[in-house]
């Protein structure tokens, strides 16, 4: 079994994707798909399999980056290691006028 717990699509991404359930407080290793480089982050929340972990602090109003692209905008401050999902991230599209 691999020792990494999350994967990161691109170098400038602000989130990684958990490949296994990560518990709050775990020191989790992440691998970049681009070059197999790795980082370690302490999980600030439980991150279930397939969910996203913040790689650095993200302020409310800032774009969240995955695949090297904008996947939406944070509407709350997000701490490093925190879960990034519908409670703090919203699409830039599909907004009623």
């Amino acid at each position: 079994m691999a020792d990494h717990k999350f994967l990161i699509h691109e170098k400038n991404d602000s989130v990684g994707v958990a490949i296994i359930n990560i518990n709050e407080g775990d020191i989790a290793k992440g691998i970049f798909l681009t070059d197999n480089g790795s980082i370690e982050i302490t999980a600030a929340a439980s991150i279930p399999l397939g969910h996203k972990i913040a790689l650095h602090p993200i302020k409310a109003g800032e774009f969240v980056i995955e695949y090297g692209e904008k996947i939406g905008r944070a509407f709350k401050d997000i701490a490093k290691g925190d879960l990034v999902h519908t409670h703090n991230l919203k699409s830039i599209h599909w907004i009623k006028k």
Partner: protein
Amino acid sequence: MSEKILAYKRENGNLGIRNYVAIIPVDDLSNNAAESVAKIIKGTIALSHPYGRLQFGEDLNLHFRTLIGNGANPNVAAAIIIGIEPNWAKKIADGIAKTGKPVAYFGIEGYGLLKTIERASRKAKEFVQFATAQEKIEANLSDLIISFKCGESDTTSGLAGNPTAGRVAERLTAEGGTVIMGETSETTGAEHILAQHFATKELSDKYLKIHRDYLKIIEDSGEDLLGSQPTEGNIAGGLTTIEEKALGNIQKAGRKEKVLIQSVLGLAEKPQTKGLHFMDSSSAAAEYITLMGAAGAVLHLFITGQGNIVGNPIIPVIKITANPKTVTEMSEHIDVDVSGILTNEINLDQAADKVLDALTAAARGQFTAAEVLGQQEFVLTRLYPSA
């Protein structure tokens, strides 16, 4: 690559990998007759659906195009059309007959249900004996039209499942294969990237225009797709926004250095050349695969995250997933497990090998999980309400 398959060569030269006698109702009223024939005559399959009355304009054209296309599909050896009135039944039969395959049509009015079942059953018996006399020939996987779509996607789809499909698309098209992708709404937020995957600027502009038109329909309705895109299942799997879903979705197009999209197809439209094609289509799984059947696809690669269980009556659907939880919890639905990509146990090319093996096995005659389990969703796309 030499994925040797066994296929039925139809009268028009197109290759199929299944050998159905399809009983196609024109309208909702004729489902009972079609299903009754399919119960009586072994080797037939009824393509029931709830529509076909008082449709008009482009919505009616799409209805005809979808039924004709599915009857003309090379996985169908012969077809019987049953309608409440004979004229529309004849129109569909005539469309299918252009392939050269045996077709017959029956109207219920003037005969009643019971006589219609008997007349159609006698013809169906003849057609099944015709179909089962056909012999398979050796061919290549790249001789087939294969469609791709993902469903109940999650983040593993974008990390591994869809990039694997992208590698499969690259390899099939490099060998002269034909692949169709689509799902217009699910490219939202990644359209600027997908636009770079078209063979010409005209095609790229055409795609961007249909995408813009699509967004305008939603905006003009005063609605948004929050709650639908992403779906509840997507969100449970970790996908948060349509942009994130779209960026994962478009991985199916492969790398643009390796393969480019050769045409933008309308609903149920058949590709005119080999290579990769994009159909302007809904992302709803059963509707999409039904449209692919009309476009001539004989095999479908379905990439799932949380475990969509869709199948189709005439197209074998191969399911792959990279989500280890889904592999365990939904095991009977999954044909290929590519979760090893997440743990670095296999790379994308090795995963593509596994998928090509599964596609080849299905194209040689092995039933897919969806076929064995009897998932046979046949769903017609509607453009607007009936008159």
